[in-house]
């Protein structure tokens, strides 16, 4: 049992998951992840480097991955915006690596020390072009630990950049936890025959290990060469990844259900907000209202199937989140009228209190019953 901070949990989990390269640039409220890595890595012979900015931090992470490292960086809103071009590059080049974003109040410099959930859509759509994204959230110190470790696994398995979203409260929050054991996914060194193709389904082979790979952000095919391959190859690779993730949806969709059984009003939430929502559920249940919580830890790929399952059985879904209404959009899209869906957003740097959420849930149910309209 240990009392540790969210940011510390991320650093410890990364190290346990085999992370041996960290490149970063300081920013509140993510800085302690970096500061921890600066202490953890050198004694292990791992690399820690403070880069000149977030553009280069992300680039160095990708370069290091191609040097064979398990590499990560951590940042917050403004830095996350600057990393978008390179997250897209990592996706395009099938580079396993991990990006942590501790969300603070935005937009712009905003409220550097206060929590938000403003990067839910940016983590999926923030990079130009279009791609497939894997994004996890955490709501407790323990889940920050677990999700960081999972991020390294998913990065390795799907050869993609994986994003973990925290927030200013979680980053700095301390909880007592028993840290679970972590086994890093082993790296399989494949046969490097004449016809080895470094992209597509292939295992990841870094530079210097026998194959003179060509890595490019240009459209390319499984060989990596942009020569003849046009966009069709890129689209094929993207769709294949999308399909693979869809096939594995049940394994990679991490979530926690609380009192979901028989719930008529479902709170669909994630990250730090899910904690208030959990307390709200208990309050509502105490009042005899059949409330339940779906706490999504995997938000991208968005688990339509799971939300649809829930929507089939519920009368209404309320989506509390610390933004102007982001994840509620794919929720509404997935629900497609199966039940009512209402957003509950705030962007003032404060957490929702359990009572605020309970109140909104009551109002939603009331509107439901009277057939009234609730702004949504």
């Amino acid at each position, binding site marked *: *049992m240990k*009392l540790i901070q969210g940011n510390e949990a991320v650093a410890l989990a990364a190290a346990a998951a085999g992370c041996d390269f960290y490149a970063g640039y300081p920013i509140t409220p993510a800085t302690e992840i970096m500061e921890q890595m600066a202490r953890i890595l050198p004694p292990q012979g791992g690399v820690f480097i403070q880069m000149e900015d977030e553009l280069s931090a992300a680039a160095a992470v990708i370069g290091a991955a191609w040097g064979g490292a398990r590499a990560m960086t951590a940042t917050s809103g403004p830095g996350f915006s600057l990393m978008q071009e390179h997250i897209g590059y990592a996706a395009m080049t099938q580079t396993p690596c991990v990006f942590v974003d501790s969300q603070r109040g935005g937009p712009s410099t905003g409220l*550097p*020390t*206060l929590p938000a959930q403003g990067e839910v859509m940016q983590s999926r759509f923030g990079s130009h072009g279009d791609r497939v994204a894997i994004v996890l959230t955490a709501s407790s110190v323990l889940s920050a630990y677990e999700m960081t470790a999972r991020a390294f696994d998913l990065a390795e398995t799907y050869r993609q950049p994986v994003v973990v979203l925290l927030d200013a*409260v979680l980053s*700095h*929050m*301390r*909880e*007592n936890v028993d840290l679970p054991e972590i086994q890093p996914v082993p790296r399989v060194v494949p046969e490097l025959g004449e016809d080895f193709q470094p992209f597509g389904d292939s295992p990841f082979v870094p530079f210097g290990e026998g194959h003179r790979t060509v890595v490019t952000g240009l459209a390319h095919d499984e060989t990596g060469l942009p020569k003849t391959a046009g966009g069709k190859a890129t689209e094929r690779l993207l769709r294949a990844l999308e399909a693979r993730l869809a096939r594995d949806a049940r394994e990679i969709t991490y979530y926690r259900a609380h009192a979901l059984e028989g719930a008529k009003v479902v709170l669909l939430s994630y990250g*730090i907000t899910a*904690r*208030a929502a*959990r*307390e709200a559920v*208990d309050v509502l249940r105490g009042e005899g209202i059949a409330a339940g919580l779906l706490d999504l830890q995997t938000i991208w790929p968005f688990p339509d199937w799971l939300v649809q399952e829930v929507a089939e059985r519920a009368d209404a879904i309320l989506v509390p989140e610390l933004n102007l209404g982001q994840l509620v959009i794919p929720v509404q899209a997935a629900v497609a009228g199966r039940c009512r869906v209402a957003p509950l957003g705030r962007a003032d740097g404060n*957490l929702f*209190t*359990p009572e605020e959420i309970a109140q909104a849930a009551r109002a939603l149910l009331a509107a439901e019953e009277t057939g009234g309209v609730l702004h949504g």
Partner: protein
Amino acid sequence: MRSDPLRIRLSGRGGQGIILAGTVLAEAAMQDGLHVVQTQSYGPEARLGASKSEVVVSSRDIAFPEVLMPDLVLCFSREAYQKFGRQVAQGGVVLLEETILADVPDAQGQLLPLRRTARELGNELALNVVGLGALVAITEAVSRESLRAALRHRMKPEFMELNVQALEAGFRLGESVPSRA
């Protein structure tokens, strides 16, 4: 515990060691075998701005991590009292560094000579530890043994002696308070 969950808010100005105090308290609660969440909040100022550190202690898993209405309040500075000090749950305890009264004549709570006690020990920076000691002596939020252990775990060795003394002084200070809250 006085209540389950028990919600504690420490506040003061940046540089007074509020967050460290919260961490030590949380660690002590952990050693008492309880669930604990400690959160913190501060402004852009590295020093002097009002900052707070909150600890929720419970025998069960803790959902909402922040403190809306604290059961126990410990406040070290004027700016912190003005920003955070006036909210307290019914039946809660408010402990204030005595000099706050000079700036805020209508301050409500048990006044304690925390800074003076620390200064007498030779280092005003021990203020936070004196405060912790007093808080625990008055409210029994955590066990003294756990608090001593937590302190040893979290403090830099070079300040250990000072801090141990400060803690004991805090305990005595708390014990000396007439009506135990």
